[in-house]
């Protein structure tokens, strides 16, 4: 790494003659708060961060290169492994891109199943975030409460598609499995339970004075910066931009349901915390409606040609993942394999602002800020 961060500044105080030196600290690749293999080289003066350089790629698996030699159906399991905390949205964005190119009709029931799966996954993802974020802040209890509730969602997914995290559930033109008998009721039950449990979460954490003091005013940025850095999702909404692709560029059947897009104006870690919690609430609201309106019967797989060959050309679609705007670009040459497949990963793009946010911050704030961006390294490195 040929970067000037490697030169540290030595300073000798003229009064006392004390020699002080800046220190380079390698946070990661193996570090509890990087949530994966992510390295952050920070130059610190005392505990104040002077400069931070993120280094990534430890989890780079070349998904985009691999995809060029795979058929579209085969790529779907690979997308599970990108953002492994919310694999459903990844599944969807790929299928959605192919379907947009081919102009496929998705059966109603499949649409509902997709939406329910995605929203459940959003709740699960935010729960993981909530737990791990508090672990970063130093509270270990919430992690386990969050994982207990997430477990229920994963069990639901396990029943739905036979896997807990690497779902491989959606297919171009529909979904692989119909909901098993009784599944919808279980999901309904969970939504009701989660609504109550969410209040407990607030009781446990949100009012905690230590927690509030740790987060308020930390990692602040404004709308202009957010747009400049291509931030999306909660990162963008925390600065007051009311923008949610589910609402503003509706895909799937999101336009049929009533929900709000929570926004905040502070743009700090606390705002992002509140937004994510509010998003769980909204997701539960969508789920409630969707589960209620779930069609009693119907196909779950649309009419799809045996070999999926999108027409020659290119397409870029974007949807709202729990982390922000996830996009999928496909350049097709009319073959069954993509000529070029590119994922716009929200974690990767959102992470860009980190060096800016860390400048001049305390070392302890580093984990608070990094956590509030909500990255998944599988997605950053792709």
């Amino acid at each position: 790494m040929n970067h000037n961060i490697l030169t540290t500044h030595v300073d000798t105080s003229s009064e006392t003659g004390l020699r002080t030196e800046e220190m380079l600290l390698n946070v990661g690749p193996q570090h509890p708060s990087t949530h994966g293999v992510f390295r952050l080289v920070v130059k610190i003066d005392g505990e104040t961060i002077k400069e931070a350089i993120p280094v990534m790629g430890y989890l780079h698996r070349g998904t985009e290169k691999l995809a060029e030699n795979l058929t579209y159906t085969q790529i779907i399991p690979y997308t599970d492994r990108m953002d492994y905390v919310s694999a459903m949205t990844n599944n969807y964005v790929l299928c959605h891109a192919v379907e947009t190119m081919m102009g496929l009709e998705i059966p109603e029931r499949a649409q509902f199943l997709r939406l329910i799966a995605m929203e459940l996954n959003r709740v699960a993802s935010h729960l993981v975030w909530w737990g791990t974020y508090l672990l970063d802040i130093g509270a270990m209890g919430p992690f386990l409460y969050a994982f207990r509730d997430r477990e229920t969602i994963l069990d639901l997914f396990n029943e739905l598609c036979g896997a807990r995290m690497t779902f491989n559930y959606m297919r171009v033109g529909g979904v692989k499995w119909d909901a098993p008998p009784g599944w919808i009721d279980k999901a309904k039950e969970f939504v009701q339970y989660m609504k109550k449990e969410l209040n407990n979460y607030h009781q446990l954490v949100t009012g905690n004075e230590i927690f509030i003091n740790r987060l308020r005013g930390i990692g602040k940025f404004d709308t202009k910066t957010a747009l400049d850095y291509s931030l999306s999702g909660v990162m963008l909404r925390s600065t007051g931009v009311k923008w949610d692709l589910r609402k503003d560029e509706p895909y799937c059947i999101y336009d049929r349901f009533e929900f709000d897009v929570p926004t905040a104006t502070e743009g700090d870690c606390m705002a992002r915390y509140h937004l994510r919690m509010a998003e769980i609430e909204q997701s539960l609201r969508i789920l409630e409606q969707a589960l209620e309106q779930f069609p009693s019967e119907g196909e779950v797989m649309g009419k799809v040609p045996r070999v999926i060959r999108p027409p020659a050309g290119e397409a870029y679609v974007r949807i709202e993942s729990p982390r922000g705007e996830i996009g999928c670009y496909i350049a097709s040459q009319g073959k069954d394999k993509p000529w070029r497949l590119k994922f716009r990963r929200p974690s990767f793009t959102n992470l860009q602002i980190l060096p800016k946010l860390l400048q001049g911050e305390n070392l302890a704030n580093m984990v608070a800020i990094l956590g509030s961006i909500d990255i998944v390294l599988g997605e950053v490195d792709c």
Partner: protein
Amino acid sequence: MLGLAKGLGYTFKKLTEKKVTHFYPDVPFPMPPRFRGIQHFSPEKCIVCNQCARICPTECIQLTGKPHPDPEKKGKIIDTYDINFELCILCDLCTEVCPTEAIVMTNNFELAAYSRDELYKNLKWLDDNNTNVREEN
């Protein structure tokens, strides 16, 4: 201080609540019917169509066929069938394409081994792995 007290109250309540721990190695973990575990392979059903090997995204399936021993019958029967579980991601695509359900998922998921070599499973092993076979494929 109120927030702190509320939090303490919450954790105290949890002290006596029902625990969620699974006694996993002592009590087997039941998996739902659709669970994607280690594949079961029944050679008598296989028609050596190669679809599973072709659809596999990680190319972990290797198979060879041989001509049918009964000269009257056409087609091939399976000779060797190997799945490399170092690569297999249990994505379910092979069972999805299989026209005869020769390869199906089971609910078994314990694969840990002390050597990587043990993760190459051959036809016999896959055939013997016939418990908890998934019904819906």
